């Protein structure tokens, strides 16, 4: 695990700091008014003229002392502040997208398993395959076009096309968790929460549409597998109603593989959905990381990729542990 984080940081460090002509690391410490002589001095004092492995060592030292550097494009704020101020938005999007994925994907999978090789199964298969064939940026714009633009022009209830909260409501509730939906609830301001929910639906659906197909396929496969087991035959032979056989006996075991997928999906989303966040102007970490790439902000990219890697590694570990817990047949 440490090894993975070390590897990620080395690769990103090499890419982000090793090519000063494209990504000048000192760009975060200068302004338009900085004179060439001062730039020289900044390069010297920050050690940007040293060999790369020494620079890496400096960076590691600073990181362990809580110093992640600064991001010039974000008004020179410390990089970790830039990250932590954006992270709650990504969390909100992740949670909503996950709920939507589970709420649509699991029933879809169950239906296709129970009605195996019928029209319903084929329809679910097409939905699933479309989900992972669809370019997410395109789908995002289509959602905007239909639900924000056409619904509005037809006089139907429309959804906002981007952002996290309507302009007029910005800053009307105190920040507690940083998640607009929860903050609205805490402040007892339901109008605020409703507005926040309306903003999150389209990006969350866009994200979940891509992955609910995978989920449905996995649920279908494991459900079919489980339904062929002896204990299900036994439960049926006992005369249990089909509902109980399926929802109480089969589903529990069939959902174990789906859990793995959900865990990895959540981990991936917490790392920021660059495309969806960008199209919906959702100010989460994915959106910011794209800005950081264009701004040549190596400080942010290092912090961002390390945290994302950490989330993925921890998620993998959690899923493995949970797996053993949920399925006693598996032993390590």
């Amino acid at each position, binding site marked *: 695990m440490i090894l*993975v984080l070390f590897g990620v940081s080395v690769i990103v460090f090499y890419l982000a700091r090793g090519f000063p002509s494209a990504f000048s690391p000192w760009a975060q410490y200068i302004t338009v008014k900085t004179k060439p002589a001062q730039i020289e001095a900044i390069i010297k004092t920050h050690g940007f003229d040293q060999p790369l492995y020494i620079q890496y060592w400096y960076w590691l030292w600073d990181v362990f002392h809580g110093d992640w550097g600064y991001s010039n494009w974000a008004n020179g704020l410390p990089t970790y502040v830039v990250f932590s101020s954006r992270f709650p938005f990504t969390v909100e999007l992740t949670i909503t997208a996950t709920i939507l994925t589970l709420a649509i994907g699991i029933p879809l999978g169950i239906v296709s398993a129970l009605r*195996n090789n019928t029209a319903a199964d084929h329809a679910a298969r097409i939905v699933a395959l479309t989900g*992972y064939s669809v*370019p997410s940026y395109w789908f995002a714009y289509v959602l905007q*076009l239909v639900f924000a633009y056409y619904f509005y022009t037809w006089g139907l209830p429309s959804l906002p096309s981007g952002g996290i909260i309507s302009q007029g409501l910005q800053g009307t509730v105190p920040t507690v968790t940083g998640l607009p939906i929860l903050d609205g609830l805490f402040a007892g301001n339901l109008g605020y929460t409703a507005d926040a929910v309306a903003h999150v639906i389209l990006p969350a659906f866009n994200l979940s549409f891509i992955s609910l197909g995978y989920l449905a396929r996995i649920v279908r496969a494991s459900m079919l597998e489980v339904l062929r087991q002896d204990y299900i035959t036994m439960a049926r032979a006992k005369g249990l109603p089909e509902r109980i056989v399926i929802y109480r006996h089969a589903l529990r075991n069939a959902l174990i593989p789906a859990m793995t997928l959900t865990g990895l999906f959540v981990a991936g989303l917490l790392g920021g959905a*660059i495309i969806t966040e960008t199209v919906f102007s959702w100010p989460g970490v994915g959106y910011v990381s794209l800005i950081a790439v264009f701004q040549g902000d190596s400080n942010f990219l290092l912090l*961002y990729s390390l945290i994302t890697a950490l989330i*993925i590694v921890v998620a993998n570990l959690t899923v493995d542990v949970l797996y053993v817990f949920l399925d006693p047949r598996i032993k390590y």
Partner: protein
Amino acid sequence: MGKKTDQAYLTRGETQARIAELKYALHLMRQNRLVLSGSILVIFFIILSATATTIVSPDQAFDLNFSQSYCWPSSIISWTALAATCPQGSNFLLGTDGFGRDLLKMIILAIPLDISIALTVVTVATAFGVTVGSVAGWVGGKFDEIILRITDIFFAFPSLVLALVFAALFGRTIQNLTIAVLLVWWPIYVRLMRGQVLVEREKTYVEALKSLGVKPARLVLLHIMPNAIYPILVQMTLDIGGVILTFSALMFLGFSPDPALPELGNLAADGIGHVFTAPWLIVFPGVTILVIALAFNLVGDGLRDVLDPRLRR
């Protein structure tokens, strides 16, 4: 015992059984209407990309005419009240882009580029992954451990960011963008092949061949590979759509070498600022990508069901 003791086994039983198996698989695939339509679409797109430059002259991409940019021809569908109408006598079926080019022609020109990039990435990633993966799986030990850790690192990466940084650093040429996608695409094949080899090497037939004195390289290449290759084939088919999606997304996010380049993501990117005035610019290139990716995914999904005898139902 000669060194080609496995020859008889290879030429007689093995090959015939494999051909019979393949025929049966093809038969099963033809049974499934979804897979059949996917295959027809795939064949259509491959023929289209081979003949695209004869249908539409590539010079058309440089034929800029700003007086007719962002216009929509027919009155059958009216996208928005804000859309500009194309001049009388012009026949742009799918409207024009910001450079005043026929969008349909640009899409036709773009398809071969996207498909060839996808094929390149998938082929190179597979070749690399199969080689490294089978060596890692067969040799095991330290080498396997190192390879595993390296793929772990790449799996933990936010892959799009790695590709973005690479593209930002080394310049936005098609070649560099292809390498950027390749950079995040190879580890899955290494892992897949390694897992396959690990399973196969424990089987009785490998033990039998080993005892016959068949050399490791021959054993892996001629005996294990044919048995281990099916999941790789499925992955390749499924990945073609994925690579097109990723590559066009890079273009869409602003890493295009040239805004006028006929590439599906790039054509869609041209419509970003004009979503509500010229929606067709995003809609049609996106639909094209969706249909291509869906066609390959349908075939891949069908292949997976058919090639794995346990899943045949």
